[in-house]
């Protein structure tokens, strides 16, 4: 287990700017604690690996020499002496090696228990509560204390603990934000919670970790950790209903939204649309991505997605929506106004 190789790779990763989805670059207290245990375990295991490989190499060298020494006699004759004379020294060596191995394992167990306790003791004062529900293949997000909903994005205030309640509407999904905490399953019929705290601002990528069907690969979740003041600002904006359409085109777009199939699945707060099968779109235009972290949120992608979602995500529940050009442009105008 060459530890050096591993640290080289992670160091290189830290230099180049890229998406953060790594368990070895912790940005939160939970991931940090686990990373500490990882380092201890890696060091111990590397030492064991080196010791045993060394013993093996010495054994090979010794046995080879013994054979050369015996080369004068018949090389094929087996050495049967051990069947008649108990090999006390060898047996004692094996016994001691086993004792050392057992002590090593016990140390690992203690380190693990200690880490598990540390993880369970995150102070929960003034924790932010979020309810996250997994769907094939997107994330429904409800900020329960503050009373608003969003989808496919998490915003967290830096330094404040967060308790995420995990649910699923269909199959098993798993929330995994490697930079912030370990993963936890979202199992239909059960509720679980996971607590975490982001300690450094940044955008961390999360991805569903339990195989959940055809598009399991395309179920990502951008997690944005920002300063508390910035978070408050964001949350206040989320609580507001969708802005009234200001232009004719946008008004027409809203009518299209309400008349077309969209309302059956989507919600836009402040309108008649209150479907719950698909993501809440109240503040769609403010989100960085479309389709669960898959596409950058711009007009061209939005249009392409509405016309034929299955081109990007075969198996997604959203049906294709071939709209006349005028309706489509109005709809896009309207959706782009939902900041």
């Amino acid at each position, binding site marked *: *287990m060459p530890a050096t190789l*591993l640290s080289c790779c*992670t160091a290189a*990763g830290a230099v*180049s700017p*890229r*998406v953060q*989805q*790594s*368990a070895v670059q912790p940005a939160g207290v939970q991931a940090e604690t*686990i990373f500490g245990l990882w380092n201890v375990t*890696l060091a111990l*295991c590397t030492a064991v*690996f080196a010791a*045993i490989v060394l013993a*093996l190499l*010495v*054994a*090979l060298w010794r*046995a*080879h020499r013994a*054979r050369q020494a*015996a080369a004068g006699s018949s090389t*094929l004759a*087996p*050495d*049967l002496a*051990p*069947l008649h004379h108990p090999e006390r020294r*060898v*047996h004692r*060596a*094996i016994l001691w*090696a086993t004792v050392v*191995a057992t002590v090593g*394992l016990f140390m690992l167990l203690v380190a693990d*228990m200690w*880490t*598990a306790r540390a*993880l369970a003791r995150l102070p929960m004062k003034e924790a932010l509560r979020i309810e996250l529900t997994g769907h*094939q293949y997107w994330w429904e997000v409800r900020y329960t204390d503050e009373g608003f909903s969003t989808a496919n994005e998490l915003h967290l205030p830096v330094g404040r603990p967060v308790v995420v309640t995990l649910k699923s509407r269909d*199959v*098993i999904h798993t929330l*995994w934000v490697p930079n912030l905490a370990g*993963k*936890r*399953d979202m199992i*239909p019929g*059960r509720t*679980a919670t996971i607590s975490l705290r982001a300690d450094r601002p940044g955008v961390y*990528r999360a*991805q*569903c*970790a*339990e*195989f959940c*069907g*055809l598009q399991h*690969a395309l179920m990502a979740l951008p997690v944005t950790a920002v300063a508390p003041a910035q978070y408050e600002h964001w949350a206040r904006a989320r609580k507001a209903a969708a802005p009234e359409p200001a232009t004719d085109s946008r008004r027409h777009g809203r009518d299209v939204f309400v008349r077309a199939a969209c309302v059956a699945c989507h919600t836009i707060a402040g309108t008649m649309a209150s479907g719950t099968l698909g993501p809440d779109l109240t503040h769609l235009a403010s989100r960085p991505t479309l389709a669960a972290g898959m596409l950058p949120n711009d007009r061209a992608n939005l249009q392409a997605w509405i016309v034929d979602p299955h081109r990007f995500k*075969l198996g997604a529940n959203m049906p294709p929506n071939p709209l006349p050009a005028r309706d489509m442009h109005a709809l896009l105008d309207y959706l782009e106004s939902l900041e």
Partner: protein
Amino acid sequence: MSDAASATPAEVLEQTWRDPPGLWGWLSAVNHKTIAARFIYVTFGFFVAGGILALMMRLQLARPDSRLIGPDLYNQLFTMHGTTMMFLFAVPVMQAVAIWLLPLMLGTRTVAFPRMNAFAFWIFLFGGVMLFAAFLIGAGPDAGWFAYVPLANADYSPGKRIDIWGQMITFTETAALMEAIVIIVTIFKMRAPGMTLDRMPLFAWAMLVTSFIVLFAMPAVMLASTALITDRLVDTHFYDPELGGDALLWQHLFWFFGHPEVYLIFIPPLGVISAIIATFSRRPMVGYRAMVLALIATGFLSFGLWVHHMFATNLPELGKAFFTAASLMIAIPTAVQIFCWIATLWTGRLHLRTPLLFILAFFVILLAGGLTGLMLASVSLDTQLHDTYFVVAHLHYVLLGGAVFPMFGAFYYWYPKFTGRMMSERLGKWQFWLFFIGFNVTFFPMHILGLEGMPRRVYTYPDGMGWNAINLVATMGAFMIAASVLLFIVNAWRSRRRGAPAGADPWGGGTLEWRAASPPPAANFDVLPVVHGRYPLWQPAALPDRVAGIDPALREVLLTSVTAAEPDHRMLMPSPSPWPFVTALATTVLFVGSIFTPWAVVWASLPVAITATFWFWPRHSESRIRHEREVRPEVRS
């Protein structure tokens, strides 16, 4: 047998034990070597097929955002790869090798229940072929080899894909159960006189422990998949939380089988390794009893750790801590065995031939896999590592290191016994290095990939995650592995005709299989051996003893007592019969029919009953001989 008087005893034996000629005879074969050879070819075929599936996956993952293989085919590929390697290769190949080898190693003429042995092979073949046929017509399973519900239930996996998977798993595992029974009874009752349990080869011990694990673990997965089928076909609610079922029930049942499964793949090689190390170190294994106890302890402990596959499912913390402790504890017996092997090498005189090379590689690779296993056994670390490429790396280190490397070692080691000819050492060494390097190039970087956040079971990944280079390297490594396997096939094929003649004991081995001719005659031994030590061939002074009173003109074997291996009974073994084959066909119809209608279980049981009746119909001639020969055989010197 009219010409028995003029023939030599060896010819009479050959007449008595060989399989009948012709197509009908081919289908009637019950000789353990015939059945086992077919079994080995078929499982190796599935190994190659599973490898091709893996290559296709690696091609898809070589580049980010690749559109080479769509999500549907990819999900079928990884489901079939896991299913094939676990159910159609890893477990059966070890059972097949054992069926071939154990009677030779234990000094007897056949396995217990030879017709059931044949039946097990046929249903395994039919089940495996059905699974691949479904895949080739586009109905391959796509919910993962672990088939978690609710994804695998009728709501989220409509169509027949999961039904076919579930039924064929149950079907092929029936074969594994039968083979386990065959192996246990062969080991307990058919050892040569004098081969007490304390003198039994470690390979036989390993197969004994493995077979007991099969006996207790396989029913869990058969139960789980049967409950899944009834949920899907007759609307029961075992796994439906909305109607009183529980999605986690599946995971408990599946992993209660799934974790012991790893050990039943990994324990037989422990026996292979002990055989190869003793032979090439030119000395008996150090710590025989410690090895046996370690094997048994591993078998027991393997049932106590399944929950470490479920650390992310929000089970109570105290329970998880218990399973962490149990998972760490199983490292102790493995450590004991590794220490014993190193001590044997340390005190021996080494001959570095190809089989031993594979075993030495096993040490390094299994050690790495075992240590990453300790990491996964920790609840906290597991919540980061679970379901990532770190686990993919770990499990391939354990399974290829623990089973495929020793299996290649075993093939090189016993090939001369199997064919009468040696494999090429030069090609063997080439194959070894290609495999060893290719393996590490493919799987070592995946540890890093997992830590860097790549989840497993994804058919694609976006650019800019820092995963591109590692995935490309892994794909290149996969092709090195493929080239190595190809080289092995070439070597095995060429050496069948052109290899140097081997003789009975080319390596100077100490166990009984090296006493039979290479390849062994139908009856294995002309004279049944009597054993006086753990390595009977290394103690030639003790060999002249022989068993008297076994009739070479009858399919008779000697049964011995369970622990002391004292001669106990002579027993007439069943003769070749086509009925196991026909019954297997009827059973296949039942299982395949049940995929489409539950009523198939009712109406298709009729042909199964009829064919089984023919199979078991008593023959008067045989029962008369049985009655007349109720005399104990004896050992004479």
